[in-house]
């Protein structure tokens, strides 16, 4: 693993140099829009030039609509064993009711892809980690299933695979004895795709979820965040989440 760490550090350093040049270029020619819509070449490592995020508009989120949950679990091959207490849940719908005003808010809750993830802090093996582009993942090759991260997560976003898993997707290996959570559909994102939940939401014509690069000022998510702002759930923890909400 020490080798991997080294290569990551090297690429980070070279990235800093590159981004400094890029910033200089931007100030020289203001008004020039640099659109980086092309997919990342398969042999290129992800960099912190991007920070993937999702903005969820709770006003648009359909009350009683489960499409994001179904799509996520279908995409990642998560099947129920008929035991709700121990079934894996990567994304769930939460209904908030204000006792005073009786206002009801419905929202999907999943891994918030924090910039300072508590799950990574507590992991004793380094299995829980954050990619350069802000996606928080579990490396199941290293995970020993201690579940400290599940305890540390303020969003209850992670689940433990209690039972033997079969019928895995070839892009989403999953197995008994390890912790798992939303990967922001990293297999799709690396190929310039959109997470399954976001896709399902727009297919259901709710359009409550916007996915994109929060560091790119021209992306839809950045524009929406500039215009309307976005709330972080438990912002007091200072985690700087990648999933933001509107209307709460």
């Amino acid at each position: 693993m020490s080798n991997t760490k080294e290569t990551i550090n090297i690429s980070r350093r070279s990235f800093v140099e590159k981004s400094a040049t890029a910033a200089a270029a931007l100030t020289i020619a203001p008004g020039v829009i640099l659109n980086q819509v092309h997919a990342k070449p398969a042999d290129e490592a992800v960099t912190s030039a991007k920070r993937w995020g999702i903005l969820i508009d709770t006003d648009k989120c359909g009350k009683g609509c489960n499409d994001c949950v179904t799509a996520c679990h279908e995409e990642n091959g998560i099947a129920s064993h008929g035991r709700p207490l121990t079934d894996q849940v990567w994304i769930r719908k939460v209904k908030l009711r204000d006792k005073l005003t009786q206002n009801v808010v419905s929202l999907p809750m999943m891994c918030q892809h924090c910039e300072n993830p508590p799950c990574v802090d507590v992991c004793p093996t380094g299995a829980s980690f954050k990619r350069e582009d802000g996606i928080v993942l579990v490396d199941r090759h290293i995970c020993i299933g201690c579940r400290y991260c599940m305890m540390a997560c303020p969003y209850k976003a992670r689940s433990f695979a209690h039972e033997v898993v079969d019928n895995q997707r070839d892009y989403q290996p999953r197995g008994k004895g390890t912790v798992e959570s939303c990967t922001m559909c990293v297999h799709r994102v690396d190929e310039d795709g959109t997470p399954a939940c976001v896709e399902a939401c727009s297919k259901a014509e709710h359009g409550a979820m916007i996915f994109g690069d929060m560091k790119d000022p021209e992306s839809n998510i950045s524009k929406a965040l500039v215009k309307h702002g976005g709330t972080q759930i438990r912002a007091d923890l200072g985690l700087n989440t990648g999933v933001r909400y509107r209307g709460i």
Partner: protein
Amino acid sequence: MKHLMQKALITIAGTVAIALSSFAVADDKEKASFGPHVPHPTNGSTECVQPEDEMKKNHMKYILHQRDATMHEGIRTKTYSLKECINCHVPENSEVRYGDDKHFCSSCHNYAGVSIDCFQCHTDRPMGKNPHNKSNAQATTPVKAEVADITVGASNE
């Protein structure tokens, strides 16, 4: 003198053993060929990503390196990915699972007594047009959305 005697005895015993084993091979030549029977790729390719000898010895080095690169850096080149090993070496629509002698990986691992846990998480068959694909998995019930009912503003009570 004692040593010489011992050496001679060992040599004789060795010769006898070799002679016997060669008889045994000659007897049922069809059944027993030394080494595992490794099935060839069924997609028509004749060359692996590295020469066969290199792959026999070092396939895990390539896969392990690719594993960390993909997991941590999002590098998704196909050449040394386990997914591509499976896509090439395990026929589509096959019902053969890891553990079965006919499975490409098991054919040698079973022979050599190697235990691996790759396929506790990774799929052991190509997802392509296999029955083991998405539409099949759909038959299992996906986890239903649990709606947690949370009341906020308890202080107003």
